[in-house]
């Protein structure tokens, strides 16, 4: 089983994601154009990259979510395939209905790019299995629309089902308002689908998957997903 990275016009983390996936899987992922209607045969993991698909015009991810390739991605997810959406990728997955909630303008109204602390809330997923539960990690964020919004019902469900993958946290693991870079409800930084095989997250693990860049905390996500994709084969 291999990985595929979906490329929309305006995606700008597609290469970075491909580099991280190749490092984890030992082989380069297929780059799939948004106008395609099918995923390459044998695709185990679909990754939707960050960036500004279609300029982020109208609503982030809205236009991309309706691109031809997304039907194939939805079918892949429905079959239990792995899907990872990072930053704009998460926005796309929400707009496509593959993940719940909404991502809105940051509370500061400003774009925010910085290293944030995260607490791993769930290790029960093919993406987070290689972290220790409650582990503190640090990953960069870079977004303008990352405030996760959920109504109380949804929030309760996500919490109860252990579908909150990451929360913004202090280095001590404490969940504080100061650790929240964008005003997300309950400091939520990443969410899993019901079957736990679709993950959307705002921070960029692919930008911290190489010790030469000062940290390696993101690599475990790709390694875990690679292993799960192989297992599914």
């Amino acid at each position, binding site marked *: 089983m291999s990985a595929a990275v979906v490329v929309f016009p305006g995606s*700008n983390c597609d290469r970075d994601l491909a580099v991280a996936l190749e490092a984890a899987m030992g082989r380069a992922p297929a780059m799939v154009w948004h106008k395609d209607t099918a995923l390459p045969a044998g695709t185990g993991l679909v990754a939707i990259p960050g960036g500004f698909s279609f300029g982020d015009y109208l609503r982030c991810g809205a236009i991309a979510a309706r691109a031809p390739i997304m039907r194939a991605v939805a079918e892949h997810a429905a079959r239990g395939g792995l899907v990872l959406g990072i930053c704009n990728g998460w926005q796309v997955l929400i707009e496509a209905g593959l993940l719940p909630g909404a991502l809105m303008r940051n509370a500061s109204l*400003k774009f925010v790019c910085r290293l944030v602390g995260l607490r791993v809330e769930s290790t029960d997923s093919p993406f987070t299995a290689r972290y220790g539960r409650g582990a503190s990690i640090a990953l960069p964020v870079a977004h303008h629309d990352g405030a996760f919004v959920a109504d109380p019902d949804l929030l309760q469900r996500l919490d109860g089902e252990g579908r909150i993958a990451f929360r913004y946290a202090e280095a001590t693991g404490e969940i504080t308002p100061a650790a929240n870079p964008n005003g997300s409800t309950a400091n939520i930084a990443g969410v899993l689908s019901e079957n736990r095989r679709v993950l959307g997250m705002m921070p960029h693990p692919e930008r911290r998957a190489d010790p030469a860049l000062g940290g390696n905390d993101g690599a475990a996500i790709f390694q875990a997903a690679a292993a799960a994709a192989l297992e599914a084969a």
Partner: protein
Amino acid sequence: MSHTAPPAEPEVTQALAAEHGLKPDEYQRLLDLLQRTPSFTELGIVSAMWNEHCSYKSSKIHLRTLPTEGPQVICGPGENAGIVDIGDGLAVVFKMESHNHPSYIEPYQGAATGVGGILRDVFTMGARPIAALNSLSFGAPEHLRTRSLVSGVVAGIGGYGNAFGVPTVGGEVRFHPAYNGNGLVNAFAAGLVEHEAIFYSAASGVGMPVVYLGAKTGRDGVGGATMASAEFDDDTAAKRPTVQVGDPFTEKRLLEACLELMASGAVISIQDMGAAGLTCSAVEMGDKGDLGIALDLDAVPTRETAMSAYEMMLSESQERMLMVLRPDKEAEARAIFDKWDLDFAVVGQTIAEDRFRVRLGGVLKADLPLKALSGEAPLYDRPWTAPPAPTPLGPLPKIDPAEALLRLLAHPNHCARAWVWQQYDHTVMADTVAGPGSDAAVVRVHGTDKALAFTSDVNPRYCKADPATGGRQAVAEAFRNLSATGAQPLAVTDNLNFGNPERPEIMGQFVGCIEGIGEACRALDMPVVSGNVSLYNETDGRAILPTPTIAAVGLLKTLEARIPLAPSEGDTLVLLGATLGHLGQSALLGDLYGREEGAPPPVDLAEERRAGELVRALKAAGLITAAHDLSDGGLALAGAEMALAAGCGMTLDAREGMAALAWFFGEDQGRYLVATTEATREALLERARVAGVSARTVGAVGGATGGAMVRLGDTEVPLARLQEAHASGFARMMGDA
């Protein structure tokens, strides 16, 4: 789109020429050249080509004195960007450009399109942009417009660069009342290219198709190039031109389409459309290739109806390119642009005759001698006077060094810039090794163990007090910032921002700064490979401070060679370079007391070079763990920045026989604060002695009892207070702390 007849064109007169910015003698020059009255379209074309922005008529004779060559230089000034070899068949392409006036009128879009323009300059040469910097100068923080300009400009730079996907890794922000009526936005971009994949703008071959690429043409900024060279007056508000709106989404697609196009072998030459878009780009391609160009404007993709030839030739719509195409590749080339949903239109061809012919609706709208448009542009040796001597240096203020440090760190000119750079994506492309906040930003060369270092520097206060010293210092500081990160300086690009050159005292600043820049670039082996001049930055006769921004690029052969900023607890601090305690034009006096007095510190270029080489050698020998250059704010500020970076206390000892303020805040040049261990300190001092660089142990990291303290001689301040002052200064100034 169909062209319904545009309104009748005005008759060309001397008065109309004057409205286009042509002086009477310049208009006469045009009449002599044509031997007839120009058409309206021709007047537009010529005024665009002959204005300051395109012709460099006031600056050219001085720019020619700058060193532009070196074994590392692949392409110097004159192309869209400079190109420097970095080994292994790779090169770095870079340039800096101002968007001052547009950003003052509409900060968000002005700054955004400034970023867009400089990115196009880089990728039009075949390079993928890998880093951006921005050098920003604003009026006094308390001035009415300053905060909204800061918000708008920063959001615009981020809005464009972030969406495009280039990491914005550094820059400068300064505040000074001299910029109240004229802010500066200087944007730098660098890209990577393989030697064989470099593209230039010179057309070649007769009868080759000229192809228009990218976004459609509207009436954006018609008259913009003329505006960029006109002094503001109080009616600027009334005369607001159509502002250009940037579309980073289109730019990103244009980047990908152009790189695919270049790889396909379809491109003979290519040139982005910047100021006076179609006019400047077409003339430049013809001029460089010794060819004429014939354009058929009916084929130009437009987004507005009834556009005249004049409007199309002067439109500054963004995200457009012009290319000379290999005819047998047309279908392939068109398919690439279709894939990216961008316009692709054959709008003309190269011709053997030296003419620039423009047709619309079957009518010949312009028929000009092409070479003369640039070759015969006016050239001025404007009179200049040497600047007046600065006011003499008064007595030292009475303040504790630690208190002065605390106040400086909270000052808008010295507090942390995180408020700014957190709005910039500085980690996209996943190669940023050291982003904003370090001396020079360090970006890995993708897929290798090498890295490039980028910095931008200038001290306008120095330039005002003594232009030649200021020019020298700007280059020296850039050299120092690169050296402090361990990089070997390669070359520079400059962005020369001044007031009205028709005033001899302004021209004197310009001439002096260039002299100093040239001298320093020669002495430090950093040729000038590209640059940009922005004149007329003044309002009602009040000029900005002379601001020749220098952006420099350096090479790290391995990531191992990088020197971090943060020392470790227990390290010993050694000061390299001589300290005389020079306080003339210092941050201490200027920023804390509003006293812009005395001469700026002299710059000894030979010492500068020795010190920089020593720092790199010390790193190679494993004798230092961290380094920081000294610039404004002197030893105290440099030390505090290292302490803050490390999150450790620090002790800096007083110096016997020197006033504490002079020792801690003096701005003598050619200095670095380096961290070493007790074990390596002796070897370090010995190396410095052999290199002829003065070195002295000045303190240690940590070492305070109780909570972490920063001690300056016998005064001290808790690190936590410095942290708070430094971290919150910017937000406090912006009113959103």
